[in-house]
């Protein structure tokens, strides 16, 4: 009886493993074929559907808005009294304003030019805070000989508003918070990381090789210049769609659209 029972479960396990291998192979095969675009669209649709269900039951992520409230600082008077297209954004949410603050003016020199120094000649004070235990582990030299080096941090986000670092694939709430604690608030800072600094951050976050694998530096370089990496979290996608709907229906009352709950 016991052997019979085990036999059944063994069969189920074998079928599960076979399914995993088949699924992984199928994904790769379709991704390499001309159906790749359709594959992405279907995945997005399913992801949106799942997010909608989660929102319905109130289990969607609501932490982003809270986090921004905790790290954002009041805008300086000069920034709040500006006119032009930026000023029109003041009534909108942080999510919508932050990426634009990172984008340089059309004829300006890109901000990402200081390899090894994230703040160049801006006169900002280097920030040395962070979790001491984590800092100690971050400075461990590994066998490959790369000596970790702490990237320059800043005490507070420029203009009072941090960039939405979760737009980088691989950065979620926890990593964003940890980065903020070591003075990293902007895409331009991440884009300027050297390999030694990447190693330091990877060890600080206890996220070995993830930064290299996801190419945070490359993603940040694109985002710092106001570009789009093509990666968008489902929540952001939903927010943008909702904002478009608001604008289509004449929404301009200066209130933030409801964030996902």
């Amino acid at each position, binding site marked *: 009886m016991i052997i019979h029972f085990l036999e059944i479960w063994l*069969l189920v396990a074998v079928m*599960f493993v076979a399914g*995993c291998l088949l699924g992984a192979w199928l*994904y790769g095969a379709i991704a390499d074929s001309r159906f790749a675009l359709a594959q992405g669209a279907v995945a997005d649709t399913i992801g949106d559907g799942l997010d909608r269900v989660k929102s319905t039951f109130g289990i969607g*992520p*609501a932490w982003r808005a809270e986090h921004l409230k905790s790290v954002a600082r009041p805008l300086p008077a000069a920034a709040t009294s500006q006119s032009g297209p930026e000023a029109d954004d003041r009534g909108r949410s942080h999510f919508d304003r932050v990426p634009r603050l990172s984008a340089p003016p059309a004829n300006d020199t890109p901000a990402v030019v200081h390899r090894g120094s994230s703040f160049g000649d801006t006169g900002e004070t280097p920030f040395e805070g962070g979790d001491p235990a984590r800092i100690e582990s971050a400075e461990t030299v590994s066998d490959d000989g790369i000596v970790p080096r702490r990237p320059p941090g800043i005490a507070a986000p420029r203009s009072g508003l941090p960039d939405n670092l979760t737009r980088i694939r691989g950065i*979620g709430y*926890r990593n964003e918070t940890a980065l903020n604690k070591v003075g990293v608030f902007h895409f331009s800072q991440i884009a300027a990381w050297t390999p030694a600094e990447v190693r330091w951050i990877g060890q600080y976050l206890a996220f070995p090789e993830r930064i290299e694998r996801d190419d945070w530096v490359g993603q940040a370089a694109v985002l710092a210049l106001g570009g789009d990496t093509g990666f968008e979290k489902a929540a952001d996608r939903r927010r943008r769609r909702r904002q478009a709907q608001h604008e289509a229906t004449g929404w301009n009352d200066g209130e933030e659209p409801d964030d996902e709950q």
Partner: protein
Amino acid sequence: MLYDILMFWPFLLLALVVGLVVGWWYQDPRSADDMTAWLEPGPDDP
């Protein structure tokens, strides 16, 4: 063994389908972020 397969084929099929979904999801680059988001608790979590 044959008896088991004939008797429990719906469960075996279900295991295959679940495995297929897991394998597919594992390969999908979106899963890395999903997993990150899933593992990272929000401020309200204990």
